C-alpha cells in the first residue's frame, strides 16, 4: 500500500487538535495517557459499543491551547476479530459518530519488544495520518541492554521517535514537544511497499466493494477484509455475506495466483520489513538468562502452590471488601444520619419537605456514597494486581473452570467480588475484552450472594429455622444460601452464552507480560477514576430512584390517617387498661396541660372518641407531648397506617396475589417490593409494617416475635420454615438493587439492565414458588 487512505477530509482546523493513542496492551499506554492529560480525563461510551471511550485534554502551551487525546483500546493488530475491536481502525478513519478523526496518532511501543510492537505501527501508518512514536519502558530496555538507535530509527521511518518511561514520567516533556511539532509539520510514517499482486488485489477489492455499502470503504478496510480470516469489520460495514465473500474470495485467489498465501501474507510481508528496518539499529538481547518473571511464575502458576496462592489472594480481596469496608460504610451512614438530623431541624415546620430532604435527598446521597469504600478497596487491589501483571496469571489458572460456559478465567475476579457487592464486581468486568464474555459475566454477577442479602438470611433463619431445627442446621442453611446464587449462575451463564448472546467466539490468547513493580501514582489514579465514574454516572440514577421510591412510600398522606390511627390506639389502650379514653390519652401523651386541653374538648362533646379525634386534628396532641413508649408506639402505628395506604402499600396489596403461590402475605409483599431499590430495606420496612418502627435490625427480638405471631385472616401462621426459605430463595435470586441496575445500565445499556431485572425477578419468583409448593406438599 504505497498510497494513503482515500479519506481526504481531515477535521476542520477550527477545533482543538485531536490526538489518538494506540499501542499494544501492556505497553504502559494508559500510564502515558495519564501523564499527558493529568486530571483532565473523562470516560464515555462509543455509541452502541461496550468498550469505554477514554478522552482527556493535553495542554499544548501556556496560552490555554489544548489538544483532545483519546486513548484507544490496546490491540496487537488492527484485525478486528471480536465485535468491538474494529473501533480502533474506524476511529482512525473518522467513521465513528461522535469522535472526530484524529489529526495525529501517537503510537506507544514497548521498547523491549520493538519488533512485535511495530507490527501495529506499520498498519496504522497505512491509514495515512501523521504519527509520533513513543518508545515506552525505555528504562527496562536499558536494563536489558537493548541498545536502540533512536535517531536512526526516526530517520528511517520519517517520524519523531521519543523514548519515554511513563511510569516515572521521564520523556513526557520531550513527547509533548514532539507532539506539538508534529501537529504543525504532520510527518507521516514510511509505509510498506507491498508486492504487486497483493497491492493489486487490495485495490481491486476496494473498487469492487466501494459503493456496495452505506458509505465509502477505505483502502485499509478493504485490506482488512482481505487479510483477516474472520472479521467483525465485515458485519459492521453491513456488506451482505454472499456478495462480500464473492469479492473477497476473488481477491484472495488473485493473491494465491501471485504466489502468496492470503492467510499469512500480512505477517509474511510486515515482519521481514520490520526486521529490515531494525537491522543495525538495535542490539538484540543475547541468550536471555532465566528471567525473573519466569522464576516468579514457577511459583505463582505452580500446580499446587499457584492455586493456593491464588486462593489466598482472592481471600484477601474478598475479606477486605466484606469486612474492611464495613466500618467505613457505617461511618458514612452515621455521617449522613447526623446530617439528616441537623438539616431536618430547619424543615420541622413542613413535614413533607422534612421527609423529602431527610428521607429522600440526604438518604439518597448517602445511599450512593455508602458504596464507595467497597469500590475503592476492590479497585485498589485490582489495579495493583493488574499493574504487577498478576491478572493474566489468575485468568490462566481459572480458565478451565469458566471456559465451558462461555466465560473465561478473567471472569473470576468480577464474580468473586460480587459475593461482597456486585457493584464493584460489575465495574471490574470491564477488563474482559471479549464483549460476549463480559456481558455474560455482568448479567451473572448479581446472582452472587452479596453482603446486603445477609441481614435477610439472618432474620429469617434466626426466627424460623434455628428455633425449629437447631443451630447446626441454621449454620448450614446460611452457608447454603450463599451458594444458591452460584449454583443457578452456572446454568444461566451457559444458557445466556448459547442462546441469548449471539456472537463470534473470541479465542483465549492471553499474553503473560513480565512482572513489573506497580507505581502507586497510577494505581491511585485508576482507583480515583473508578470512584468518580461511579458517583457521577451511576450515582445520579441511584439517587433518582431513591427519590422515586421515597415518594411512593410517602404519598398519599392524608391527615385523616394519622387521626384515625391515633384514635385507634387510644381506644385500644383505654380498653386494655379499663379506663376512659381521656385517661388513656393522658397516659399516652403524659402532659397535664394537654390532657386538660383534651378534657375541655371532651366535656364539650359527648362522643369521646370523636373528641379525641378533634383534639388530634387540632394539632396539639402528638407533637408537643412526651416521648414515652406509648407515644412512640402511637407514632409507629401511624407510620404503619400511612405505609399501608401509600402507593407502595397499595401496590403491595394489589400485587400480593402474584406472590400468594410463594406463601407471601401482603406485608411480606410490601417488604419485597420496597426492597427493590435496596435489599436491606426489607428489615426496616417489616419493622414499620409490624408497627415496630423503622429502626429495627435483623436480630431484633420484637420483630421476630411479630413475625412469628403473624397470621392470615383464617388464623394460620404466615411464617413457617418453608415460607422462610421461599423468601430467602427469592432474595437470593431477585434483582433488588437499584444501584446494581444503574451500574449495569452504565456498563452496557438500558436494555440489558431491564433484561437483568426481568430475568432475575422471574427466576426469583419461580424459585420461591417452587420451594413453597414443594415444601408444603412434602412437609405440610
Amino acid at each position, binding site marked *: 500500500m504505497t498510497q494513503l487512505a482515500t479519506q481526504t477530509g481531515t477535521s476542520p482546523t477550527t477545533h482543538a487538535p485531536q490526538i489518538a493513542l494506540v499501542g499494544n496492551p501492556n505497553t504502559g499506554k494508559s500510564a502515558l495517557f495519564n501523564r499527558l492529560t493529568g486530571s483532565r480525563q473523562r470516560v464515555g461510551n462509543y455509541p452502541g459499543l461496550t468498550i469505554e471511550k477514554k478522552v482527556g485534554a493535553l495542554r499544548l502551551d501556556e496560552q490555554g491551547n489544548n489538544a483532545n487525546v483519546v486513548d484507544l483500546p490496546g490491540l496487537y493488530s488492527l*484485525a478486528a476479530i471480536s465485535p468491538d475491536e474494529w473501533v480502533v481502525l474506524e476511529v482512525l478513519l473518522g467513521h465513528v459518530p461522535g469522535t472526530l478523526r484524529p489529526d495525529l496518532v501517537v503510537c506507544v511501543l514497548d521498547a523491549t519488544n520493538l519488533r512485535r510492537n511495530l507490527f501495529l505501527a506499520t498498519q496504522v501508518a497505512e491509514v495515512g495520518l501523521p504519527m509520533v512514536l513513543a518508545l515506552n519502558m525505555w528504562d527496562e530496555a536499558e536494563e536489558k541492554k537493548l541498545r536502540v538507535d533512536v535517531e536512526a530509527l526516526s530517520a528511517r521511518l520519517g517520524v519523531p521517535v521519543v523514548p519515554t518511561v511513563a511510569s516515572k514520567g521521564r520523556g513526557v516533556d520531550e513527547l509533548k514537544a514532539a507532539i506539538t511539532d508534529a501537529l504543525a509539520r504532520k510527518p507521516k510514517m514510511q509505509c510498506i511497499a507491498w508486492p504487486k499482486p497483493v497491492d493489486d488485489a487490495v485495490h481491486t477489492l476496494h473498487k469492487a466493494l466501494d459503493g456496495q455499502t452505506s458509505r465509502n470503504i477505505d483502502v485499509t478496510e478493504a485490506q482488512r477484509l482481505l487479510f483477516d480470516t474472520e472479521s467483525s469489520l465485515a458485519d459492521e460495514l453491513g456488506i451482505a455475506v454472499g456478495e462480500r465473500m464473492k469479492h473477497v474470495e476473488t481477491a484472495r485467489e488473485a493473491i494465491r495466483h501471485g504466489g502468496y498465501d492470503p492467510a499469512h501474507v500480512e505477517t509474511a510481508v510486515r515482519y521481514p520489513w520490520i526486521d529490515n528496518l531494525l537491522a543495525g539499529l538495535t542490539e538484540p538481547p543475547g541468550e536471555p538468562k532465566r528471567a525473573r518473571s519466569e522464576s516468579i511464575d514457577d511459583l505463582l502458576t505452580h500446580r499446587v502452590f499457584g492455586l493456593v496462592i491464588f486462593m489466598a489472594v482472592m481471600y484477601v480481596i474478598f475479606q477486605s471488601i466484606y469486612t474492611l469496608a464495613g466500618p467505613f460504610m457505617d461511618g458514612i451512614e452515621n455521617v449522613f444520619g447526623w446530617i439528616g438530623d441537623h438539616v431536618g431541624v430547619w424543615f420541622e415546620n413542613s413535614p413533607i419537605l422534612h421527609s423529602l430532604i431527610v428521607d429522600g435527598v440526604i438518604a439518597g446521597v448517602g445511599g450512593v456514597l455508602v458504596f464507595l469504600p467497597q469500590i475503592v478497596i476492590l479497585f485498589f487491589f485490582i489495579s495493583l494486581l493488574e499493574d504487577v501483571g498478576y491478572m493474566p496469571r489468575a485468568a490462566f489458572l481459572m480458565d478451565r473452570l469458566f471456559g465451558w460456559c462461555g466465560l473465561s478465567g478473567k471472569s473470576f475476579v468480577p464474580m468473586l467480588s460480587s459475593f461482597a457487592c456486585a457493584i464493584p464486581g460489575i465495574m471490574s468486568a470491564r477488563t474482559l475484552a471479549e464483549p460476549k464474555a463480559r456481558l455474560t459475566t455482568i448479567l451473572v454477577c448479581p446472582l452472587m450472594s452479596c453482603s446486603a442479602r445477609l441481614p435477610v438470611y439472618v432474620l429469617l433463619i434466626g426466627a424460623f429455622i434455628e428455633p425449629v431445627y437447631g443451630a447446626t442446621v441454621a449454620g448450614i442453611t446460611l452457608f447454603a444460601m450463599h451458594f444458591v446464587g452460584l449454583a443457578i449462575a452456572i446454568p444461566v451463564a451457559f444458557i445466556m452464552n448459547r442462546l441469548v448472546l449471539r456472537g463470534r467466539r473470541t479465542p483465549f490468547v492471553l499474553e503473560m507480560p513480565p512482572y513489573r513493580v506497580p507505581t502507586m501514582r497510577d494505581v491511585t489514579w485508576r482507583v480515583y477514576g473508578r470512584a468518580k465514574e461511579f458517583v457521577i454516572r451511576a450515582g445520579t440514577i441511584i439517587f433518582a430512584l431513591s427519590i422515586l421510591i421515597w415518594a411512593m412510600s410517602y404519598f398519599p398522606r392524608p391527615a385523616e390517617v394519622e387521626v384515625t390511627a391515633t384514635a385507634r390506639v387510644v381506644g385500644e389502650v383505654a380498653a386494655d387498661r379499663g379506663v376512659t379514653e381521656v385517661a388513656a390519652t393522658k397516659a399516652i401523651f403524659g402532659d397535664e396541660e394537654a390532657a386538660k386541653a383534651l378534657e375541655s374538648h371532651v366535656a364539650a362533646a359527648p362522643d369521646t372518641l370523636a373528641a379525641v379525634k378533634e383534639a388530634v386534628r387540632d394539632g396539639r396532641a402528638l407533637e408537643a407531648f412526651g416521648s414515652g413508649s406509648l407515644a412512640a408506639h402511637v407514632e409507629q402505628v401511624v407510620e404503619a397506617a400511612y405505609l399501608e395506604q401509600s402507593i407502595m402499600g397499595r401496590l403491595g396489596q394489589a400485587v400480593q396475589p402474584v406472590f400468594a403461590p410463594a406463601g407471601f402475605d401482603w406485608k411480606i409483599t410490601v417488604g419485597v417490593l420496597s426492597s427493590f431499590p435496596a435489599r436491606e430495606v426489607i428489615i426496616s420496612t417489616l419493622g414499620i409494617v409490624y408497627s415496630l418502627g423503622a429502626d429495627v435490625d435483623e436480630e431484633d427480638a420484637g420483630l421476630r416475635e411479630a413475625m412469628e405471631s403473624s397470621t392470615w385472616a383464617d388464623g394460620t401462621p404466615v411464617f413457617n420454615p418453608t415460607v422462610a426459605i421461599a423468601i430467602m430463595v427469592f432474595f437470593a435470586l431477585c434483582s433488588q438493587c437499584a444501584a446494581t441496575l444503574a451500574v449495569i445500565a452504565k456498563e452496557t445499556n438500558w436494555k440489558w439492565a431491564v433484561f437483568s431485572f426481568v430475568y432475575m425477578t422471574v427466576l426469583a419468583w419461580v424459585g420461591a414458588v417452587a420451594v413453597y409448593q414443594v415444601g408444603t406438599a412434602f412437609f405440610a
Partner: protein
Amino acid sequence: MPATIEEVTTVPIGKVRVGHAGKLVVSGACDCTLQRLMAMGLLPGAEVKVIRVAPLGDPIVLQTRGFQVSLRKAEAQGLAIELSA
C-alpha cells in the same frame, strides 16, 4: 564421521509436554487463534517452547521470541510443534 539424522516429530500443541520446544507448524486452516498469535509475533516456523500447563490441565503457556502467551488446547488444534529431539 557418522552422519546423524535428527529425529523430527510433529506433535499437536495440546499434547506437547512441558519443557519441550520446537518450530511452530500450522497443520490446520488459519483461524482466529493463529491470526491473533501471528499479530502478536508468533509466526509459523518460529521457535516455541511449552513452558507451563495450568493446574486443571488447560490452558498452556508458550514461550517464544520476546514474549509468553497463554492459549487453550481446544482452540489451538490447528497448531503443532515440530520437536527437535
